[in-house]
C-alpha cells in the first residue's frame, strides 16, 4: 500500500493551493459572492490555465488525469479555499457527460477554459432520485421543468435529460440532449444560492436539442459517481479549513484570562473534530480508490463517504461555529462561508439519509 500522491498530483496540489492562497482571499471571494453572475471569469480562466479542468479528463478525452485521485486532489483544494466558481457542475459533470458522448471539440474547449455548461437533470419533485425524469421528448421537442439547475444563466449549452420512454422513475428510457442557451422555448429563472454561485428553474416549452445519448441513465450514473466523490473531497477540504480556523481561534481567543482552548470542555470537542477529520479523509480515499471497481463496490464506497461526510461535516460546521461564538455568525468571516459550503453539500447528490439507505440496499444486493 502507498498513500502518497504521485509526483504529478503533488505538483498540481501545490500549485493550486499556492494560487488560491495568493489570489482567492476571503475578501476577494466575498466580493465575487456579490457579483450578479455569481462567479469570476478571471479565476475560471486562470485555474483552467493551471490545469484544474484538464485534470478532470483522461488522456483519451484530451486531459491529463481523470482518475479518482486526480479529481479528489483538485476538489479538496477548491473546497479548502471555498471556491464558488462552477467547476463541479460546468467542468466535471457537464464536461464528463460530453466526453462520454464523444463531443471531443466541446471537451477541448472546456479544458481550455472557454466553455460554460449546465446540467438540467433534477426536477421539482425528483429530490435525490436520479432516475426520476418527467420532462418529455416528443418528435425531438423537449417539454418540462428542471429544478435548481446550477450555473444555468452562465452556460453556453445546457445538457437536458428527458424521458423518451417508460415510467417516470424508470432507469431505461432517459435520453440526454444538448440545448443551446438561446434556443426557442427555453426559459431560465435564476437566483443566488446560500453557499455562493447561482442556479435557476428551467422551463422547456417545445425546445429543440441535439441528441447526445439514448442511454442517459448509464452516462449519468457514471458521471454522478465521479461528482459525488468530488463533492466529498470538496467538503473534506472545507472541513479542514473549518478545523484549522477553530484550532487557531481556541489558541488565541482569551476569556477569563486564558485562551479558551485551555478549557477542557472545548479542548475535547476540538479533539473529536480532529478524529472525525481522519475518518472523513479515509472515507474520501475509499471512494476515490474504488472508482474503477465494479459498480456495486464503487457505489457502496461512494455512499459510505457521502453519508460519513454528511455526519462529520455537520459536526464540524456546527461545532466550529459554536466554539467560535458570535464571530462565526458574521458574513465576512471565513468560517461563515465555509460552514455554509459544508452544510449545503448535504443537499447535493443525495443527503446523509439517502446514502445510508443506498448503502443498505447495495450491501443487501
Amino acid at each position: 500500500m502507498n498513500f502518497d500522491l504521485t509526483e504529478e498530483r503533488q505538483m498540481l496540489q501545490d500549485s493550486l493551493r499556492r494560487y488560491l492562497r495568493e489570489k482567492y482571499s476571503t475578501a476577494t471571494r466575498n466580493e465575487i459572492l456579490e457579483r450578479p453572475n455569481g462567479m469570476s471569469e478571471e479565476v475560471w480562466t486562470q485555474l483552467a490555465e493551471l490545469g484544474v479542468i484538464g485534470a478532470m479528463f483522461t488522456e483519451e478525452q484530451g486531459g491529463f488525469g481523470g482518475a479518482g485521485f486526480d479529481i479528489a486532489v483538485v476538489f479538496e483544494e477548491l473546497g479548502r479555499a471555498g471556491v464558488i466558481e462552477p467547476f463541479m457542475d460546468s467542468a466535471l459533470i457537464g464536461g464528463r457527460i460530453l466526453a462520454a458522448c464523444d463531443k471531443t471539440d466541446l471537451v477541448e474547449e472546456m479544458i481550455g477554459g472557454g466553455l460554460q455548461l449546465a446540467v438540467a437533470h433534477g426536477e421539482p419533485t425528483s429530490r435525490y432520485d436520479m432516475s426520476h425524469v418527467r420532462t418529455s421528448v416528443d418528435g425531438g421537442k423537449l417539454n418540462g421543468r428542471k429544478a435548481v439547475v446550477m450555473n444555468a444563466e452562465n452556460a453556453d449549452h445546457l445538457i437536458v435529460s428527458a424521458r423518451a420512454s417508460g415510467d417516470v422513475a424508470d432507469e431505461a428510457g432517459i435520453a440526454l440532449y444538448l440545448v443551446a442557451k438561446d434556443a426557442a422555448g427555453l426559459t431560465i429563472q435564476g437566483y443566488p444560492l446560500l453557499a455562493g454561485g447561482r442556479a435557476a428553474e428551467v422551463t422547456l416549452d417545445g425546445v429543440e436539442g441535439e441528441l447526445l445519448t439514448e442511454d442517459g441513465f448509464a452516462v449519468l450514473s457514471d458521471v454522478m459517481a465521479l461528482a459525488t466523490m468530488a463533492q466529498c473531497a470538496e467538503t473534506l477540504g472545507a472541513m479542514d479549513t473549518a478545523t484549522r480556523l477553530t484550532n487557531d481561534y481556541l489558541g488565541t481567543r482569551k476569556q477569563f484570562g486564558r485562551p479558551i482552548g485551555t478549557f477542557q470542555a472545548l479542548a475535547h470537542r476540538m479533539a473529536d473534530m480532529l478524529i472525525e477529520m481522519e475518518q472523513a479523509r479515509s472515507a474520501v480515499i475509499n471512494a476515490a480508490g474504488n472508482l474503477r471497481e465494479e459498480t456495486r463496490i464503487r457505489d457502496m464506497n461512494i455512499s459510505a463517504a457521502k453519508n460519513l461526510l454528511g455526519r462529520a461535516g455537520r459536526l464540524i460546521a456546527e461545532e466550529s461555529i459554536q466554539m467560535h461564538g458570535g464571530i462565526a455568525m458574521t458574513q465576512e468571516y471565513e468560517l461563515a462561508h465555509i460552514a455554509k459550503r459544508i452544510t449545503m453539500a448535504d443537499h447535493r447528490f443525495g443527503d446523509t439519509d439517502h446514502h445510508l439507505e443506498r448503502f443498505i440496499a447495495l450491501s443487501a444486493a
Partner: protein
Amino acid sequence: MDLSYTDEELAFRDEVRAFMRDELPKEMSDKIRLGDELGKEGQEKWHAILNSKGWLAPNWPKKFGGAEWNAVQRHIFEEEAAAHHAPRIVPFGLSMLAPVLQKFGSKEQQDYWLPRLLEGKDWWCQGYSEPGAGSDLASLKTRAVREGDHYIVNGQKTWTTLGQHANMIFCLVRTDPDVKQQEGISFLLIDMNTPGIEVRPIILLDGTHEVNEVFFDDVKVPVENLVGEENKGWTYAKYLLTHERTNIAGVGFSQAGLNTVKRIARAEMAGGKPLMANPHFAARVAQVEIDLKAMATSNMRIISAAAAGGAPGVEASMLKVKGTIIRQEINDLARRAVGPYAMPFASEAIEGSNEALPDPHEAGPVAAQYFNNRKLSIFGGSNEIQRGIIAKVMMGGGQ
C-alpha cells in the same frame, strides 16, 4: 398531579386564541411564518395592538401598567403566539430593562421611561457584550468617567441586536477600573442620538442585518441616567439576565417548527413516497418530538414552581441548553426535508438578489433559518456557560 390546564387557564387560552384570530394581521403572520423581517414599523404596530389589549407587558406588575400574568399564563400566551405565527415582543425595553427600572430605578426614571415603553415612544437596545467581553462579560472595558453633571463614555459594544432601530441603549460601563471586575461596573441609559455615537451594521451569515457594533467617542451622558448606585451595575445586570431567560425553552417555537416540518414532509416525495413515510426521516422527527414532549413538561414544572412574576434559577440554564438543542434540531430537520430546494437564497445584504425563490412547500428560507438559529446556543449566555452554571450549582452546592 394533574397535567391538564384548570378551567381558568383554559378560559384564558380561549381568550388568547380569539385575540390572535381577530387582532393579528394576516400579512404579519404570513411574514413570520415565512421567516421574513417584520421591520421597525411592523414591530411597532404589533406592540400597539398588544398595548390596546393591555397585553404588551405580561410580566410587569399592574401598578406599572402591566398584565401581571403568572408563569402559566405567560406560557400559554407564548405557545399560542408561536402557533399563530405572531411576532415576538421586542424584549430589550419591555422584558429586560423594565424589570431593572422597576426594582432599582428612581421614581423619576420609572415615571418617565415605563409609560413611554408601553406607548412605543422609545426603541431600546442592549449594550452588554464587547469584542473582548463575551462569555466573560465582567471583563468589559467601555469606560465612563464622571465630570460634573455628566459621565463621559468611551468604548465599544457589539452584537447589539436591532440597534439600527434604537433611540436608546442601556449599557454596562466601567466606572472603577481599580477594583475587582464585578465591583466597578455601572448601569447607564444612553440616548443614541448623542454626539459621538456611531452604529455600524454587522451582516450575519444568512445575509440579515440583526446586530450592530456601537462605538462611543467622548459621549456625554447626564448623571440622572445612572440606574441605581454607581459600581453596582453587575447586580442589576445579573437581575436582568434572569429576566432575559424567561421563555428560554422556546417550547412554542419548537412546536410550531415541528408542525411545519411535518407539513413539508407529508408533501415532499422521496422515492415515490411521502418523506414522512420514510423510516429514517420519520425516526428523526419522532426523536425530536419525544424530546420536545418531555421538555414541555419540564418547562411547565419549572415555571409552575417559580413564583408569579419571578424567574427560575439553575433550571433556566437546563431549559436553555435543552430548548436550544431541540430548536436547532428542528431547523436541521426542516432543511433536510426540502431537499435540493434548501440551496436557493434571497439575501437583503446582497444587492439585487431579493428575487422570488422557488419554494414549492411554502417553507420559507429554511436553510437560512438553520444558520441564523445557530445563534440560539451562543447568545444570552452560551450553552457552555449554562453547563458551567449547572455543574457549579448542582455539584458544588449553591450558586
